[in-house]
Structures are given as structure tokens and as C-alpha cells.
């Protein structure tokens, strides 16, 4: 694609574009989108769904926008009567063998077939003479993906993903004609760390998330933009959650959020499933010597422990905490005359890292620790009398006479254990491994009302 600018006319409007740019991309940019199934910005065009056809002056037949490079003087119509009829007819053809599973299909509400039918279809059915082709439904093809061959529109996005992006080649179209269907090799399943992305890529309900299956209707979900805390890559995500009546605000799934500088259109499966641990084995209560105490009494007990400590105090700060939390901890440490440290080696997992979205550094804000000059080691461990842990996994390596642990999960034993909000229950800034600063919004407002670190520090800071 050259840098030369050309002028084209789309629906009688003059638009400037780069010569050779794909027409479908230009239409998206100018908010004149045409419907499509098989095109995807990350996968390119395949030209098989035929939905993106537009009228181009001088061409006898309608052309597919995904395979048309823009030229000087091109005149395009995306909404002529002829195109509307073509779209309606192609949609009708897609729907012949497509089962009317909407009432039981998870894709409902975010399904391109449904959306396009409402926009371009809405016709009297006339397919009574067509004999439906029956294929396999609800096949577990591994990695939390369920395949329904009947719902598939054969856009081949999933095949192109496993062939060109992950290069693991698990999927393909088998058979011929209208018995074509998506399948894995017999006896084999999906087997790559990014497999669940095909659920998002699938424009219809052919590939669905087994973990999310039948759990929520998507129109009830609120999507909060956040940053994945699985590793230092900092992939952008949406946390989809809902608070049903009489229930707590619950996360139902994580989806990828587009960021061309970091993760593109995808996230890894581990990151996608990382929300599950936010609901398991959480620390909800304040415990003093293993007995539950009211939050109102915490301040008093904390003060007591501090007063009784004559020796050194060390504060450990988890490298997954937000910058704002880390700054508050640093300030807090000053008031207690304590040192702060965050050992980072413990977060390194060579087996996890790869050359795409998975960083071997499992700390989401390791760069934040470094930016705030928080040291990674502490020399005089023998002189330590009290360690105050803010969710750091290396806490177990510090055996001191007294201990206080602020933790999200029931992970450690300590004299005083205090629950803190997880990353999805609060908000803040992170710096990823490429030094990109990002903000993660708060998704969950739990009725557990667990204070976040900043709220705790506010409560405790004037005690010495």
C-alpha cells in the first residue's frame, strides 16, 4: 500500500484514502461499515462469505470490499437497492442450514447473524422445501471450546487463526459442498495456549466458551475495560460481570480488548481464565491469631502490634499491585520507619514465557516496582522483628517473630491477617514490561465490601 492519497466517492461522499488500502478497512474507518463474516483485521480476507459486496461504478457485478484495493476516482455504493437485495439473499442462504438455536445459544446478543438479520433481513421465511443438513453439535474440542458444526457459517476464521497465527494447525474444513464442516483431526483436540481466542473470533455460536456455557445472557453483562494481571505483558481485557438480584457482583468471563501496541486482538487462555481464581479461596475476614475480629477493631490491634515491636519492620509489596497502592505503601512505610522491599525473582517462570503474549515475568507491575525504586532485596533479615506483607508471594520466606499479612486469598498464616480487594475490585495504574503505562478500571463492587490497600492505609496510618 503506497502513501499516495487518492479521492474516492462512497455513497456520494468524497473521501480521501491511501491508494491500495482495502476498501473494507476504509469503510470501517469512515463508519460506513458493511456486513461481513470472514474478514478480520488480524486474519485478513478470505472472500468466502460474500456479505461485504458493494456496487462499484464500472464493474458489471458487485465486488467484495475485502478484496478491493482503493483506486483514484473509485465510486462506491454500499446501500443501493441491488446491494440490499444481495445482502438479504445471502443472509437467507446462510440461514438455511443454520439451526434456530438462539434460545439456547450463548452467542445470542453478540451474534453477527442475528445482528445482520435485524439490519438487512427481516423477511417472510420461504425455506420450507430445503432439507436441513444435520451435523454434530456441542463437541468438546478441548481448551474450553465447544464446537457446534451446524451453526457454523464456514467463514474459516478459526482455521486461519490456528494455521497462520498460532501455527498449530488443529482445525480445518472437512467434507465438501454443504456437508463441509469444521473439525479437528479425529482423536485430537485443540492444543495451544491461545485456543480460546477462536471463541471470540467466531462470528456466530459455532465456537463457544465451555466455561461460560449457559451461565449468563450477554446483554446482562457489564464490560469493564481492565488490564490482565497474569504477567508483565499487560494485555488489555474486558471484565464482563453482572450483579444479579440477591447475588453478589460476579465476573462471568474475560474478553480481549484491542490494543495495537500490546496484545493486538488476542489474549492467552491463562489470562482469559485468570478471573476464576478471584472467586476461590478469598480472604474475607480479618483474623487475629486465627480468630475473626471486626474491621472496626483492626486499627486497635494493629496499633498494639506496632507498639510492641522494638526491632526492625519490613514491608513486602506484591509486584502486582497498582502504582497508586505502591506509592501509598511507601508513604505508610515512612510513617512506620519500616523498609520496603519486593523480591522480583520469584515471579519469573521460564516455562510460562513464549515469544508472543506470555511473558516469563508473572508480575504485572514489575516495572512499577522498579520505577518507584522499591528495592528487591533486604539484607538484615536477622534483625527483623515484624514483616507486614501486602500480598507478596515471597512472604513465606520471611520467618519473623511477628507478622501481619494483607492478602487477597487465604494463603498465609500470620498474627494479624487482613483481607484486601483484588485487582478487579479496585483500580489503578500499571507499567508493563515494555514500559507502557496503563490504567485498569474497577469492575466489581462486591457486597463483601473488602477495603482496598489505600483504604486500609488511610485507616491505619496515624498509628505508631
Amino acid at each position, binding site marked *: 500500500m503506497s502513501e499516495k492519497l487518492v479521492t474516492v466517492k462512497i455513497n456520494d461522499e468524497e473521501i480521501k484514502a491511501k491508494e491500495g488500502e482495502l476498501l473494507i478497512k476504509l469503510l470501517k474507518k469512515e463508519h460506513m461499515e458493511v456486513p461481513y463474516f470472514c474478514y478480520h483485521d488480524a486474519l485478513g480476507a478470505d*472472500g*468466502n*462469505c*460474500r*456479505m461485504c*459486496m458493494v456496487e462499484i461504478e464500472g464493474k*458489471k*457485478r*458487485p465486488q467484495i470490499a475485502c*478484496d*478491493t*484495493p482503493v483506486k483514484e476516482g473509485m465510486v462506491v455504493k454500499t446501500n443501493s437497492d441491488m446491494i440490499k437485495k*444481495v445482502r438479504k*439473499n*445471502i443472509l437467507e*442462504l*446462510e440461514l*438455511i*442450514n443454520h439451526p434456530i438455536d438462539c434460545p439456547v445459544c450463548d452467542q445470542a446478543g453478540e451474534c453477527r447473524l442475528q445482528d445482520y438479520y435485524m439490519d438487512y433481513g427481516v423477511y417472510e421465511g*420461504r*425455506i420450507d*422445501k*430445503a*432439507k436441513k*443438513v444435520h451435523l454434530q453439535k456441542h463437541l468438546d474440542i478441548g481448551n474450553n471450546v465447544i464446537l457446534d458444526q451446524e451453526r457454523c*457459517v*464456514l467463514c474459516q476464521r478459526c482455521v486461519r487463526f490456528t494455521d497462520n497465527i498460532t501455527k498449530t494447525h488443529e482445525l480445518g*474444513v472437512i*467434507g*465438501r*459442498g*454443504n*456437508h*463441509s464442516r469444521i473439525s479437528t483431526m479425529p482423536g485430537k483436540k485443540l492444543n495451544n495456549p491461545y485456543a480460546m481466542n477462536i471463541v471470540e473470533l467466531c462470528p456466530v455460536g459455532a465456537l463457544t466458551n465451555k466455561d461460560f456455557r449457559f451461565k449468563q445472557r450477554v446483554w446482562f453483562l457489564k464490560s469493564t475495560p481492565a488490564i490482565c494481571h497474569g504477567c508483565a505483558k499487560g494485555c488489555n481485557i474486558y471484565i464482563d460481570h453482572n450483579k444479579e438480584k440477591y447475588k453478589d457482583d460476579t465476573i462471568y468471563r474475560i474478553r480481549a480488548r484491542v490494543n495495537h501496541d500490546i496484545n493486538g486482538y488476542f489474549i492467552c487462555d491463562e489470562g482469559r481464565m485468570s478471573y476464576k481464581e478471584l472467586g476461590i479461596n478469598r480472604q474475607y475476614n480479618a483474623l487475629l491469631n486465627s480468630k475473626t475480629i471486626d474491621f472496626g477493631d483492626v486499627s486497635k490491634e494493629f496499633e498494639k502490634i506496632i507498639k510492641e515491636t522494638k526491632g526492625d519492620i519490613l514491608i513486602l509489596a506484591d509486584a502486582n499491585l497498582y502504582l497508586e497502592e505502591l506509592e501509598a505503601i511507601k508513604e505508610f512505610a515512612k510513617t512506620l520507619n519500616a523498609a520496603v522491599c519486593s523480591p522480583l525473582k520469584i515471579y519469573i517462570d521460564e516455562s510460562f514465557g513464549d515469544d508472543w503474549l506470555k511473558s516469563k515475568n508473572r508480575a504485572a507491575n514489575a516495572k512499577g516496582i522498579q520505577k518507584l525504586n522499591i528495592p528487591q532485596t533486604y539484607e538484615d533479615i536477622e534483625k527483623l522483628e515484624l514483616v507486614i506483607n501486602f500480598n507478596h508471594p515471597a512472604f513465606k520466606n520471611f520467618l519473623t517473630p511477628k507478622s501481619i499479612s494483607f492478602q487477597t486469598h487465604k494463603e498465609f498464616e500470620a498474627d494479624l491477617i487482613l483481607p484486601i480487594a483484588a485487582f478487579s475490585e479496585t483500580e489503578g495504574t500499571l507499567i508493563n514490561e515494555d514500559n507502557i503505562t496503563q490504567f485498569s478500571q474497577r469492575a466489581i463492587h462486591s457486597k463483601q465490601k473488602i477495603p482496598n490497600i489505600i483504604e486500609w492505609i488511610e485507616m491505619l496510618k496515624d498509628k505508631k
Partner: protein
Amino acid sequence: MREIKIVSKNFSVKDSHLLKTALKNGAYESIKEAFSKTPDEIIDIITQSKLRGKGGGGAYTGKKWCLMPKNPEKSFLVVNCDESEPGTFKDRYIISKDPHLLIEGIIISSYAIRAHDVYIYIRGEYYQFQKILQNAINEAYEKGIIGEKVMGHPYRIDITIHRGAGAYICGEKSALLESLEGKRGHPRLKPHSPQPEYLFGYPTVVNNVETIATVPYIIKNSAEGYLRYGTQNSPGTFLFALSGHINNPGVYECEYGVSMMEYIESFGGGIKGGKKLKAVIPGGASTPVLTADEVKKARLDYDSLKKFGSSLGTGGMIVMDEDTSMVKALKNLLDFYARESCGQCTPCREGTGWVRDIVASILNKEATMQDIETLLDVSDTMNGKTICVFAPAVSGVINAFVNKFEDEFKSFLKSVK
């Protein structure tokens, strides 16, 4: 009416497929002449002869060859012997009765387009004919006719037979190349400007067997020698064929432009059982059917058939007598198309199944006028909106049958009380 035997001259000779017989009957006589010219001169002669492709498309061969680069790093000639169009069975005669003529044509064509490697893609069902062709190729290698030095000339040509495995769509040239590359036979998106085909990224020409087999005659007898026969826009001869309700079904080579009815009477011996003619599919199943009246007026050339809304296709005429049910015939053809659709793009994959089901319901007397309207509407959606010309061909077939035999189709409709 006489047969003009340009390509079929050795068909009735005993053992014509063996090299020694072929040599006695003029095989490879044009090679010396060909190598005395430059490749561009050969392309020129073929262009001047207006030789048109004989695989169903009728594109000018010279134009195709002109698209090839003059100094390629590597280029290929692919000979399309996937002959699967219903009603067509001519290429099998060339490869089994005069394979050395094909090899001779291959030599000249490869030289012209600067290719050294040739693949003959042959349909899987033609195994016994493939064996005869392979034998001829082996003989040619043994005698130094092909190989490192073609008949002593410093030019290498290697020919490899590549066996298909039962897919009509692999006769479409881009699907054929996909199949050669070891993939499913999915036709490719068409380029935006005239370009050669590509095999493994190298420029390639795909030509039909009969087209290549015609080249030696043109070189031996010059472009004018070929233009002598046929008409202005359809020069030369074609291996037309007859099947169906005909007394003498078979392949009879004849010049373009002769009257279709005369061809049917004189070569075909008229309709079997002395019955009346009802319809003829002129050029293999993918060409729109002609009524008996149209047949009487039609001539066997591209322009005449275009006037009747049809096409010359592969020249395989399927003759149907007065007792033939047009509805049954259409259903038979739609079964074929639904089975052979590659399934890549929506209108064809879903459309071919649907139109077949509608015509089945018409045949079962379960359909209404509404269904016929739906049939024609779906046919319209399949026309001009797909990746290749398979679906438009189906559309043409449906429209011709339903419109030209409207009364017959309507007589099958469920009577509305």
C-alpha cells in the same frame, strides 16, 4: 457433412497409442519446425490462428500465453485433463488413442511459454487411460523425445502425470492448481488485472488437452491453415460429441459453424427410435439447454450459441427426445451440482442444495408457484456473486430449463384448490 480430422486423425488406427505406430502416422513432425522459431514467434502464430481454449471457456490461447514472463526463473505448463463435465468424453480419446499427439503439442507449448516442467492433471476415474498415456510418456523418454534434450535440441522438458481423485471442481483452473499444490480444490479469488496463473508462486499456463493437441497442426500448417476451417470468430475444428437419445453416440471432429441439426442427423444418425427431438444441451451440462426449435436454428460456434443465451462449452451435446421429462433432467443435473460444489462460498454451498431440494419437491408434485419464484430468485443470487463460475453455470442451467419449459414445470405444481 464430413469429419475434418485435425486432432482425431489417428483415432481409428490400430495401436495408435504406441510410439512406433504414431511415428508412422506423422508424430513429432512439427518439432523441428517449432524449434526453428523463437518462443515469441510460436506465440504469434498461435495468436494469429485465433485458437480458442477447448475446455469449456473458449478463451484465446494466444492471449493466455502472452501473459507469461519472457525470462522466468521458473514457469509451468499444466494440461487440464480433469474432464468431468457431463456429456463430455473427448479428451479421454486423445490421451488413449493419440497420446503422442498430446506430447508433441506439449513440447511446442512449453517451449513457447519458456516452461520446462509440465504436469498433466488427469481425473482419478480415467486410470486405464492414464496408464496408456504414462506408457506413451515412458516411450518418449526412452527415445529422447522428451527429457534433458528434446529430440536433440538443448531444451529440457519433463512431463509428470498428476492424478486427481474425484472432484469436478478441480477442472476449474485455479482449483486445479490448488489441488496440484496438495490442497482442497477451492477456486482462488480472481486477480484485478490480467495475470498468468500461479503454481507454487511461479507463473503457469493451464490449457485443456484438446487445445494443446491442436498446436502441432497449427505449427505444421500455419495459422492460415487452421483459419481455413470454422468461422470468423470460431476458427478451426472441435471434437464435438453426442450422447443421450441418439443413434450413434460418440466423438466426431468437425469444423465450427456447421448447423447443429445437420450434425445431429448426419453424425448422430438422428434420434434413437425415430422419436422427435425435444431439447439439446449443447456443450456439456453447464450450458443452458436449447429447445428443438432453437436447435434447428443454431450453428455450432460461439457466436450463434451466445445468441440463444447458451454457450459452446465443451461441445458435448446431450440429446433429449420428446418423452424426456425436463423436470427430471433438471433434478438430475442439480444433484450433480449440489454434490460437486466445493462449499467455499455461501451462495454456491447453500444455494445448490436448496435449488435441488426445490426441484425435487416440484418433481414430487409438492411445490407451488411460489416455489418456482423462489427457485428463480435463488438462481439469481448464485449468478455473478461467487468466487468462481460454477454457481453462475448452475444459475444459467436453471433459468434455461424453467423458462424454456415453463408449461411443463407448471404442470407439476400442486393444484391449489
